[in-house]
């Protein structure tokens, strides 16, 4: 019923089906993540250039993560406080896994509006979020920009206290990455 030759043919067909899909994966290991925190009369930004992950245009899947210990705010002491707050020893990553809600035309040259929906996980708590941004094809690469906000309470993170003021619970997150064909 399933001669050896047929199995081989089936297997190669599956492989050939998978290979073109692989050719539509764009990824990075050096994307930028920024979050902006607000305290009364002051804001500060934390930045990491270690955003890793990829978008698969074939099936619209999106998967990114960043090592939270790479976030820097410009003041070492504040970085350490942030790592303590996020408990990065136990929960080192912020992760997003989801799908593109919009279609992307790789032939178009301008920035295209994009929306993704999926699971954002930080501090070992996952929430479904929707983020908006743009995707823009530039040569063999795609520029990805996305923005959304997270509420620290939703992720069971107690906002750190600076002297007598507390950091705002709502943090603005921005992602900017140049994705290369993989």
């Amino acid at each position: 019923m399933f001669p050896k030759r047929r199995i081989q043919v089936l297997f190669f067909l599956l492989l050939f089906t998978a290979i073109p899909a692989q050719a539509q994966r764009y990824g990075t290991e050096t994307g930028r993540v920024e979050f902006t925190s607000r305290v009364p009369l002051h804001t500060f930004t934390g930045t990491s250039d270690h955003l890793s992950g990829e978008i698969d245009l074939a099936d619209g899947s999106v998967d990114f993560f960043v090592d939270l210990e790479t976030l820097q705010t410009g003041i070492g002491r504040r970085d350490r406080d942030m790592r303590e707050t996020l408990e990065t020893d136990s929960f080192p990553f912020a992760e997003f896994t989801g799908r593109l809600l919009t279609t992307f035309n790789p032939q178009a040259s301008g920035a295209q509006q994009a929306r993704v929906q999926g699971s954002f996980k930080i501090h070992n708590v996952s929430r479904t979020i929707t983020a908006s941004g743009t995707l823009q094809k530039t040569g063999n690469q795609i520029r990805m920009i996305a923005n959304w906000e997270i509420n620290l309470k939703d992720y069971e993170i107690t906002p750190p206290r600076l002297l007598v003021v507390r950091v705002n619970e709502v943090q603005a997150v921005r992602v900017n990455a140049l994705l290369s064909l993989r």
Partner: protein
Amino acid sequence: MTLRRALLFTVLLLVAMPTWGQVERVRADPHPPVEDLFKAPTIISTQSVTALPAGNLNVTIHHAFASIGAGTGGLFGLDGPANIRIGIDVGVTDWLSVGVGRSRFDRQYDIRSKLTVFRQRANGSIPLQVALSGNAAATTVHSDDMDFVDRLSYGGALLIARRFSDRLSVQVAPMVGHANTVFVQRAPNGLLTPENTVFAIGLGAQLQVSSYLSLLAEYVPVVGPRSDGTANAMAVGVAIDTGGHVFQLFLSGSPYAVEQQTLGQNSDNFFDGDIRLGFTVNRVFGL
């Protein structure tokens, strides 16, 4: 048999396909260094192994009042002559910082530097944090018979520390101080045999009580020859970490904030009650 193989391939493919899209989670630094061995770049009056990150500027105001033995009449030393060192340190890299400061006692200007040799790693692969610190200072007290070179003094230390747990850090620091001129007028009975070069083993500890509060202790016993009338520096205190600031409040047997003065000039004996109230404010700015 072939049907089983076909089914097996299909199952394997189905299992493998969803994970194909999952990017492997990899730590940027799988063995991160241990942080906050000490809350501030100084324990109380001597340097700690704690490094200043690149691009950070730390402003310090070290203030040691007069002896609390002055009693209520002198408001426990608050009315007496205080030593104040105001300084700034800048993290040039994550491994190297440089700084300048000015002390009221001896009207002394100093430049200093700290080089982190290696950092303790959380996985135990490097069990210690080690740094080298050094400074050069020049007094500007008025004196017609002192050449510039006579005004210079130097201090150096090998800082070896370990964080034993989430709470306890201990530092041992072989130290040396050299003064081209020993200031005899600081000793109560004068210095009969001034020593220009003095060695010591600096001992320091930090016990973290909470994320904001730590207890500090520092003892700097001189080993070998020393100037008559000098005493080992001893201090205890608390560090309050508010995020942007670290406030250190202390009781100290020494008014000095520069190592060669602490080693070679201190005449106050903590254990005899020669104790001063003091504080240090550390404020970090990002450049």
